[in-house]
């Protein structure tokens, strides 16, 4: 096959999609800050951001970004329906059209499953199967959301979508380390536990929560033991930065799994379960990969430098303030959440500055 370099989202479409992704991020962060006590007024979008925090963050933002990545990879025009439907769906949630927004999300995930089938057909491999399972988890979560199912039953599916997507990518990379085949079997057993936990949450919440959380912690141990980041952390530059963001994320994943098990048995720690996972693991992963993925999906280049460590450090430090810090003083949770938001803002600025620096360097 010869690569035909066509624009992936031509003309005005790409900035519009980028703007919708930016709005989803802002709204998701605004919703999160309100949940930790910050007042952002009584406007309708602020209320929607508060109510739809998880949908905006996990499906509207991360789902859209992952769907862009998949569409760019499969190079099929129809695959871009997934990120567009997801991004427009999250905008609809914000302007008071929750049903339209939720069903647009379901359409997005259905198209995304189709794109993941293309990946599997192109490369029949275990990691392609895991990617497809992740896509199906997003579809299940979005269908449950559209059908108005209670949020605690949806969250494990949305998290499973992202966790399986990351696990698939790490499994694919782990082949370079030429592990014993039993290592792959162990990962599949862990992912089955995660999916079973998500599926069983409604019927057997304690057992399912323990399975889901146990699966997350086991996945963290698997990644710490077998991921290529163990090797690339000894490298330099971007490669080392990515490895550090991954390894730090794995530690939070282990914490999130334990907290998830604890909450399944009635212990407090819901903020630990959700945000050690969502921010500590998933956002650390996003920060690690963005310098590589952004140039690929946005058809731009950037300058990587040591300054990328600033938002990464702030993200992890702010989580320490928010989670263990709240044990010292409960008010630190809100402070930590504000610093979480600052870390994300700083990261977006870092990315933009790095793209502009590259353009300046090219002109010079």
């Amino acid at each position, binding site marked *: 096959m010869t690569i035909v370099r066509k624009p992936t989202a031509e003309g005005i479409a790409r900035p519009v999609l980028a703007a919708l992704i930016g709005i989803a991020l802002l709204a998701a962060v605004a919703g999160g800050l309100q949940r930790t006590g910050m007042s952002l007024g009584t406007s309708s979008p602020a209320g929607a951001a508060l109510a739809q925090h998880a949908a905006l963050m996990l499906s509207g933002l991360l789902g859209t970004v992952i769907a862009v990545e998949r569409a760019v990879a499969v190079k099929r025009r129809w695959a871009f329906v997934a990120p567009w439907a997801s991004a427009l769906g999250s905008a609809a949630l914000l302007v008071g059209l929750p049903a339209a927004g939720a069903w647009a999300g379901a359409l997005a995930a259905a198209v995304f499953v189709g794109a993941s089938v293309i990946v599997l057909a192109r490369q029949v491999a275990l990691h392609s199967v895991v990617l497809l399972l992740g896509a199906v988890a997003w579809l299940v979560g979005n269908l449950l959301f559209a059908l108005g199912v209670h949020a605690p039953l949806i969250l494990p599916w949305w998290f499973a979508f992202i966790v399986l997507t990351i696990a698939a990518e790490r499994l694919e990379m782990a082949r370079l380390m*030429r592990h014993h085949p039993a290592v792959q079997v162990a990962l599949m057993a862990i992912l089955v536990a995660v999916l079973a936990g998500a599926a069983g949450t409604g019927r057997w919440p304690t057992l399912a929560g323990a399975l889901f959380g146990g699966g997350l912690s086991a996945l963290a141990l698997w990644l710490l033991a077998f991921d290529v980041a163990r090797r690339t952390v000894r490298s330099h530059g971007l490669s080392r930065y990515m490895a550090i963001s991954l390894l730090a994320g794995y530690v939070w994943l282990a914490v999130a799994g334990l907290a998830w098990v604890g909450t399944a048995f009635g212990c407090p720690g819901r903020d630990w379960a959700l945000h050690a996972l969502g921010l500590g693991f998933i956002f650390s992963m996003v920060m690690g990969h963005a310098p590589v993925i952004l140039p690929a999906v946005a058809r731009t280049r950037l300058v990587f430098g040591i300054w990328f460590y600033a938002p990464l450090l702030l993200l992890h430090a702010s989580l320490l303030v928010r989670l263990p810090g709240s044990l010292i003083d409960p008010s630190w949770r809100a402070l930590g959440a504000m610093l979480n938001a600052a870390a994300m803002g700083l990261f977006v600025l870092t990315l933009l500055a790095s793209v502009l620096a590259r353009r300046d360097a090219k002109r010079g």
Partner: protein
Amino acid sequence: MTSLPFAFDGPPELSGPMLSALSRVVDPELSLSIVDVGLVYGVSVTEGEVRVRVTMTSAACPVIDVIVEDIELELDRLLPAGTGIVVELCWEPPWTPQMMSERARRFMQG
């Protein structure tokens, strides 16, 4: 003629520079060149055109286009102006870890 880790069909004097150019294309996460990872399957040079067959470790990776662009940039620097450069993405045979160079294996084994 330089011993090459991929099939080469073209003027022998071009094989060494071609290996050097392709070795400058690096997988950003691994800090390893695409030659070391074993992603280059073959190069054929004909009148006015260079054709490079490469694979990727993942069909779902959006960075494929960036790597292909980097290959084109490196070959563009090497070859005379006006030479056509075609990068073909192949999924057969599938990439396996056995295709990695000894250097890459040593790096990955720690």
